[in-house]
């Protein structure tokens, strides 16, 4: 073992990881709003989602892709968060020219987001 194996002492480093390893998701539409339900894959991951996947961070993740705000609702009973992405669908319904006019794949677009996780969590 060389010098590489030795780490400096101090607080454990936090890792960043894509949400796809912590959660699954489904999305749908209501008019020009897309909703994304984000569901923890393990009970231990739910607090991480609550802490890290805030409405503000989600709004930043989708910056330039929404004309409105982001709302977040917590469903601890389902280990889930529900996000409303307003103005996400190019007018929505039949007006939209987008491939994803009904917001079906905003779910996996959110799973691209990276969040920091404690090093003692197994993923």
């Amino acid at each position, binding site marked *: 073992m060389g010098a590489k194996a030795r780490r400096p002492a101090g607080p454990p480093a936090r890792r960043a990881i894509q949400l796809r390893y912590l959660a699954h998701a*489904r999305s749908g*539409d209501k*008019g020009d709003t897309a909703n994304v339900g984000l569901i923890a894959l393990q009970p231990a991951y739910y607090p991480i989602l609550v802490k890290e996947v805030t409405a503000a961070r989600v709004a930043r993740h989708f910056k330039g892709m929404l004309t409105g705000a982001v709302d977040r*609702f917590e469903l601890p009973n*389902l280990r889930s968060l529900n996000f409303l992405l307003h103005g996400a669908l190019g*007018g929505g319904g039949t*007006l939209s020219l987008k491939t994803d006019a009904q917001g079906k794949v905003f*779910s996996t677009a959110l799973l691209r987001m990276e969040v920091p996780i404690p090093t003692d969590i197994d993923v």
Partner: protein
Amino acid sequence: MTGPARTVRVASGQGFWGDWLEAPVRQVEGGPIDYLMMDYLAEVTMSIMQKQRSRDPSRGYASDFVPLMERILPTIVERGIRITANAGGVNPQACAEAVVTVARKLGLAGRMRVGIVAGDDIMDRLDELIERGHALANMDTGEPLRVVRERVLSANAYLGAAPIVEALGRGANVVITGRVTDTGLTLAPLIHEFGWTGDDWDRRAAGTVAGHIIECGAQCSGGNCLVDWESIPGLEDPGYPIVEAQEDGTFVVLKHPGTGGRISVASITEQLLYEMGDPHQYITPDVVADFTTIQLTQHGKNRVRVSGIRGRPATEFLKVSIAYFYGYKAVGTLVYAWPDAYKKAQAADRLLRARLARLGMEFEEVLTEFVGVNATHGRLAGSPDPDAPEVQLRIGVRARDRAPVERFSREIAPLILNGPPSVTGFAGGRPKVEEIVAYWPALIAKSEITPRVEMLDA
């Protein structure tokens, strides 16, 4: 001594108009069920049906429903299975008459009756309602309906479970409705069977959640399920969901033995969150359900138990679904091949936009997407692979007038010979100019709407 608690089974046979034609047949033949519910109506479906009825007064409903009934009517009458379906669209009467004709042809005369639920259609009452001070304001924008009144094509209030319960009480084997909520089709049989009272908000909420879980068919039983998707077995023969409910409002979601798909806490959770707004208030004509009270537990293989659901009193309003003519749109595509597929597609987009500008064409929106690069995830998809084997250029336009959209549809094909090279994939011909029928959601006081229930005997 009491036996096991009595249960009622409501099976989902159709998640939308166009869903798998085999699903309802398999639900009826694959094992015991008491009810088959079928959801046919999306937001703009009513306007399509309205158009069909204006050309031919015997049309205006989900036409697939009648040949389907021909396949399953003998079995459902034999076994006492009853059907709730909003296949009636804007003409439930004609749909019911067509079903009765089929029933007689099958020798079921005198052995079955069809219930008709109407009263949702307020198209002929719009002016009177507006005059009496009902603004029918758009729930998203706040604009009053008079702004688009001249262009309205259909207007229907969403009815709840009550008229279906009445039709079942009067002995209907098949209940055909106009615009009834998707969830009402499942809740109504449970109210009818268990005699839940009008103010039993928790049980009504439970029946509504049951309806929400199964209203999209296989989308809760392994279809479109992201978690562990590759390991979901047997999707060539997906088991559509069945709710097995008890009098106290708890229920199990399951599917027939030997079918494919998967029912797990994860698959049910995905469906619960589908098209969800504020989970504390899922508002229907029947109740306000609180989705933060739902408890899910795996209860054996492909069985999920649902309990704990709480509800609050229904509101004094019904939602109204109004469709109005908006304008025109068209979408054109071309495929560019390696090398430099993305750069070629980008060049073609620039040429096309320049040509449209020189022609003086004005659009409300021109949207370019590159399929294989950014069509589904936008900029989040990152930089494109410079070596991509192909990229599809996809351009959409929308305008209030037909002329610019029509002209756009003629500007795609020339690019094949007078634009960037290595282009193909134009088998579909000129882009189709489509009329846009837009959706106007509004509210109306419940006191203005009186559902009508009629019976038709075979």
